[in-house]
């Protein structure tokens, strides 16, 4: 198995990229939560629109996904991880 090049500093590099992810996560959340703007708003026929159950699943699904991602990132980047 080939050796890792020493100069890459994988750990700190990975950590910086994780911090990038922390910074970008709210933008992802914002983008996904703004998707409903493209849904059709029914004017005459109520049955044409996106059903409430689907909308609920979508909005809350993103909510859960985003906070799970936030939790995972926190697990990987929290300060006391450095010592271990």
């Amino acid at each position, binding site marked *: 198995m080939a050796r890792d090049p020493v100069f890459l500093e994988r750990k700190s590099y990975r950590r910086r990229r994780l*911090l990038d992810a*922390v*910074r970008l*996560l*709210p*933008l992802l*959340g*914002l983008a996904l*939560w*703004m998707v*409903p*703007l493209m*849904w*059709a*708003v*029914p004017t005459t026929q*109520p*049955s*044409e*629109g*996106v*059903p*409430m*159950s689907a*909308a*609920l699943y979508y*909005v*809350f699904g993103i*909510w*859960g996904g*985003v*906070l*799970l991602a*936030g*939790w995972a990132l*926190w697990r990987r*980047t*929290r*300060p006391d991880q450095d010592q271990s």
Partner: protein
Amino acid sequence: MVSLNQLVAVCLLYVAGLFVVAFLAERAATRGQAGWLLRSPLVYTLSLSIYCTAWTFYGAVGYAARSGLEYVTIYLGPSLVMIGWWWVLRRLVHIGRTQRVTSVADLISSRYGKSNTLAIVVTVMSVIGVTPYIALQLQSVVLSLSIFAAPDVGLITTDIPAFNAPQAAFWVATGLALFTVLFGTRNLNVNDRHPGVVIAVAVEAVVKLFALIAVGVFVVWGLAGGLSETMARLDASDIGTWQVQGGRWVALTMLSAAAFLCLPRMFQVMVVENDDERHLQIAAWAFPLYLMLMSLFVVPIAVVGLDLLPAGSDPDLFVLSLPLSQGQNGLAMLAFLGGFSSATSMVIVATLALSTMVSNHIVMPVWLSVQGEGASQSGDVRHVIILSRRLSILLIIALGFLYYRTSGGGALAAIGTISFGGVAQFLPAMLGGLFWRGATRTGALFGLGTGFALWVFTMLLPSFGQGGALSVATFEQGLFGLGWLRPQALFGIGGLDPTVHAVVWSLSLNTAVFVVVSLFTFPSPIERLQGAQFVTVQDTAGPARSWAASVAGSEDLMIMAQRILGAPEAQAFFQAEARAQGRLGDFPEPTPTFVQALERELAASVGAATAHAMVGQIVGGTSVSVQDLLAVADESAQMLEYSSQLEAKSNELSATAAELRRANEKLTQLSAQKDAFLSQISHELRTPMTSIRSFSEILRDATDMTGPDKTCYASIIHTETIRLTRLLDDLLDLSVLENGQVSLHKRTSALSDVLDLAVTTALAGAARPLRIHRNRADESVQLTTDLDRLAQVFINLVANAQKYCDAPDPALVIAVTQRDDMLEIDFVDNGRGIDAEAQSVIFEKFYRISGVAGVGAGLGLSICREIMTRLGGSIAYVSGRDEGAFRVLVPLQHVTDEMRQEAAIEGAI
């Protein structure tokens, strides 16, 4: 059915329980116990839940029943802000902790140069902005009470005979005020952290979450019959499709995010009560989780409520009325407690935060200036702070009650968005202050003013209804009849949703004015320093400014600190500082570090500006603020300039001294010359006088003297007398020439005539012959000068040649050359000339070439030189030749000094 009295009893019990929890927590905190719980990320996250007020608990369901999924925007915004903690909250919390910020007003005032004006503006805006929110809590508690009083569950509740809504509202308001005063300002610890309150809020957060989830679970699995059935019911209901307007979706998300950052109560729990910045990272995902759980069952409750309850029921109360209608009294009681928790925790924290702002930024500065006699006078000032806070709490709740009575209620969500719109106006000044160094105080003031005015006009006043605060005419024709000033269609752009319209216009114009005014104004030095500290906070956490406390006695500071912190606390603080400085005893050295630490400690109680003013009074205004530093810099610049002036002056002086020294040397030399001259004169005079005296004595005393002898002696005396006379004449002549008193008689004649005269005169009666070689053609030059004097010079030169030329056949060549307007006349004899060492002194007075026979006094050449100088020419010995050669330069036209000046003036004209 639960009776009202039972409800009140349960509420009181609940409140008492909370009070005990808070009391225990506070006692544990002061003893330093239970830190694992009090300072845990869990409590921090739960305390953030005061975002979810009665509006969430009751209003969200009503909101969903009216407008579908739109309610969720109110929670999406804060979730995004929390998830994006790295961008704004991290910085906000860090600044709040390092600068000991006590409120959102303190933050903004601190950032813009600790301006109290700005603090007052923000405080007033907060009070006005939060008032509808407090009214909302009152309304929700009154509504929830009323539903228990209603004989028939779910019906409209205003006309129930047994229940007087205004009276109930009044008692609820009084109760809340009392509760807040007891909770927040119970003890004399006026520090802005309230561990007791925080823990109580956390408990209430658990209660309201549990209650709402319990109702939700009951509705989904107890009433609707499971998840899939509930979903089917949702899709079949009136709100079964996606009906949210895009504009409202975006605007409300942004508005709630902005309000989450700007709400005074959120700032209180998020920044002021924060113990550890790492808690923020946990809350970043834990708080969105809480929000998600809170809003999870909202839509099912709304839909099932719409299905099961009679038409006309208030959807804002479905959370209560659903369990009641199903006979679930216990659950209803739990739901009531949840709503009560939401309302009370919000009112407590919000009024506490506002009362801190009011007392720190309005009451205390006013009180301090009214006192006017200095902060170290009189006794304990803490009772003033406590009193002002209590009065502020009463005032704020009274305002809320007043708003409730005037606006006459309305949907909870509508009231909530109005409040959000008001506080969101802080956002541009706040974010601009955190991220942009160019943001200025004036810009912030103008931005806030613009945003606030627009909010009042487009959101707050219209909320009282058409014909309420604004007349119907204003709504239709605009303010003062100006069509572009309609409160719901500014600038003629109508057709927008009123909320979107108000949010977009107020926030965008607020930002625009803030930025533009900031660009065109100039910040004060202290503002620039604070700006730099806020914007670059992650890099440098230096002190805001330092005190030079050399004048401040520690005792004076102690006296003041005791009044604000309390005697034991202040003493403990001083002792700790003294120990830190390594000193025995109670009083630390008033080093700048110590005074600054003290100022921060005080700032936590009374706000940065007030603390600074108080310390400033004690220290006697020796704060080394930036203005002072600038003044010092100015002074040192002046001193530098002064010293460089001094240096120049001293250079000038030393130059003058050197000049004087040179002049002195010259004078000394001249004096020596004069002495030498006098001794020469005496010598010259004595020689002939001696011989005259001797011969005249012989003539007097000798009786037997023959005639020829007598004649001989007499002629010797005569000759010597003539010599004396000539010497005196020469001296007189020289003195006249040297003093410049000579008057020149100018005439015009040919040079040859002058030379003829000179040669004839000089050679008259000469013992030895001297051949003269002249070129008459060259000499035919006309010249205008004092011809007699010039002739005198020539005579002297010719006579010298005749006397001293040692050639066997003496001859003199007189050569004339014309150069420009000067005549060069050389007198060259064929003798061996003058020795090199003598050449430099032949023009000195009384110089006679030694070893040469002669009768002159040695004044002839001196006189010649003086004459030539007067005539504007010169005379010199031409060295480097084997023969004696003198060169006389004489101008063709003699020009006097006065004539030269006149010529210069004419030339200038």
